[in-house]
């Protein structure tokens, strides 16, 4: 039986992960920590956990906790990850890995030094849709990839997601990382140059960008374009979208998660049609794989290094938008404005 502590209920995914832990055999949600006592109590009731802490260190230190899932705000990933690593606890960390390169590098180093798993929650890597697309690309079904154009657009998130310090950015950091991670994973290449356009365009005005586009040049010559904008109004019938067009030397491939759905038209006149996705539960697959990694049966599909690379691309996008010019990677260090 593996005991897991959930650190932070700030990211809405925390509730999904807790639910998965209840459903998966041979694992238990051993503790929850959160800075908000009311939210913590509520989660304790909902998931039948009595070991609740407002200090994450107390949760990490419990002897029945072998691993942690970190769902604090983006800027607050580093402290619990470093504490968990020092305590020899394995880590599944929500994306983006951190808000600065310095912190991301420190997290990766600490986990390596203490011999613990650091897995980043790039959930698409655990989804059969994106896995199948990767298998096709890697097997040469469309030849050598030349251009990858994709998006992960969503509804505007609440609370700390809109805080430049706690979130480290807006839509670009929140959503581009999923798509850039897939692109890197698909073609096995790194980004050499980033250009971005962005802005806060939709009402009501927020202190971070809600719209943007990120343009990538990979080292071997492929190009990438990412739309991570928070464009969808509450009326959009699902969470948002995730899609990717890949053009290769011998063919093209398109994936779009909006398409695997059923449409439900409710009988009552007040209701609007609803989309019912029939996709796999990638959150659960990701946590099951985390458990395999903890047991030493597998290596993480998305590592701390993958988290760092996706963060670096997003930070380069912010620099590009400030400077109005393409930015070369790797970025050597963080900029002063960033923290």
């Amino acid at each position, binding site marked *: 039986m593996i005991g897991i502590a959930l650190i932070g209920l700030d990211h809405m995914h925390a509730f999904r992960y807790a639910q998965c832990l209840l459903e998966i055999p041979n694992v238990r949600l051993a503790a929850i920590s959160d800075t908000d006592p009311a939210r913590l109590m509520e989660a304790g009731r909902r998931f039948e956990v009595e070991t609740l802490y407002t200090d994450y260190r107390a949760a990490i230190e419990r002897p029945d906790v072998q691993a942690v899932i970190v769902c604090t705000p983006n800027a607050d990933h580093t402290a619990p990850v470093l504490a968990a690593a020092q305590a020899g606890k394995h880590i599944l960390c929500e994306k983006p890995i951190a808000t600065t390169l310095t912190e991301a590098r420190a997290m990766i180093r600490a986990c390596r030094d203490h011999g613990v798993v650091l897995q980043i929650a790039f959930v698409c890597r655990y989804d059969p849709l994106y896995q199948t697309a990767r298998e096709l690309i890697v097997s040469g079904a469309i030849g050598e990839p030349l251009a990858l154009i994709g998006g992960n657009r969503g509804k505007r998130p609440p609370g700390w997601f809109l805080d430049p310090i706690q979130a480290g950015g807006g839509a670009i950091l929140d959503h581009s990382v999923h798509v850039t991670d897939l692109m890197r994973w698909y073609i096995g290449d790194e980004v050499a140059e980033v250009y971005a356009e962005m802005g806060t*365009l939709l009402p009501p005005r927020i202190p971070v960008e809600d719209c943007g586009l990120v*343009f990538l040049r990979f080292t071997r010559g492929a190009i990438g374009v990412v739309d991570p904008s928070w464009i969808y109004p509450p009326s959009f019938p699902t969470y948002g979208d995730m899609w990717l067009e890949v053009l290769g030397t011998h063919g093209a491939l398109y994936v779009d998660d909006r398409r695997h759905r059923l449409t439900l038209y409710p009988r009552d006149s007040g209701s609007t049609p609803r989309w019912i996705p029939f996709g796999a539960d990638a959150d659960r697959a990701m946590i099951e794989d985390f458990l395999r990694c903890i047991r030493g049966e597998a290596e993480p599909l998305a590592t701390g290094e993958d988290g760092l690379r996706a963060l670096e691309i997003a930070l380069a996008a912010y620099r590009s938008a400030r400077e109005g010019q393409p930015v070369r990677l790797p970025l050597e260090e963080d900029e002063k404005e960033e923290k």
Partner: protein
Amino acid sequence: MLRIGLIGSGYAAAHHARALTRLAREGVATLAAVYSREIRRVEELARRHGASPCPTLEAFWEADLDAVDICTPTPTHAFYALEAIRRGKHVLVEKPIARTLAEAEAMVAAAQEAGVVLMVAHEQRFEPDCRRAWELVRAGALGRLCMARQVIAGPYPDWSIDNWFADFAQSGGPLLDLAIHSLDYFNWLFDSLPFRIYAIGARRHLPFEDHVVAVLRYPDGGLAWVEASWAMPTGSPLIVRTELIGTEGILQWDSEETASLEVWKDGGARQAWAPAAEDGFTAEIRHFAECVARGTPPQVRPEEAIGALRTALAAIAALAAGHPVRLEEVSG
């Protein structure tokens, strides 16, 4: 009934000729003469549509024409347009208006001086879906437009005469020949010109980028991007996807989803489209004929067609430079 002479015998010319046949039945306009350097194709086109084939350009100019419809390769637009204007003919010319800004400006100035109508066939403005969306945007249904996206992607159009699309000096590649549909549509939607353009692209079959993405920044912050491709696998359909994102709502449509009529043939060939209202070719020629008859300016104003060309040339410059280009940097 407007007597129109058609110059050209390729893809666009065939569509325009078909549209003119429809308009002739209504007494709006008729295809009176056809000229092209491709004699055999001219004869076939003229025979199919009951028009006179002209073996030479001289014979074409001697025909009794009110207006000229130019459907030739882009670099020849200016020559034919200036010749027509000099003879007092009204001019409808395929997009893009010309290959260079200097040519385009000369055409517009000449038409103004001669007092003839010069309209560029930016067909998307007349397509029922794009037009309906523009009306919704104008009526405020989306609030203020913030972001726009269009994908126009298909296989390489290998049917161009002498394969002129593959010659960048003539066609300007997919940014000038294909993306210009979207660039004009964006400019029309945002009712302004972008100030900054960046573009990125990949090469699949051609010695220049045949799969391109351009992003435009408008003065009010608006963001628009187009993906234009001549590099999709052979046999794949021409896909047009459009998204308009406003402060009050979003419009999305996709040619695959709006296709209300599909035809399949043995061997896998499939055609799908939406004959929901009058097609863009017929609607644009109808509008042109109305402008000539009433003496009103065309809804595609000549300076807007120059603006679309300038936007495309800026995207081409940005693609070559690898960094963003400001619209005013583009000249010539």
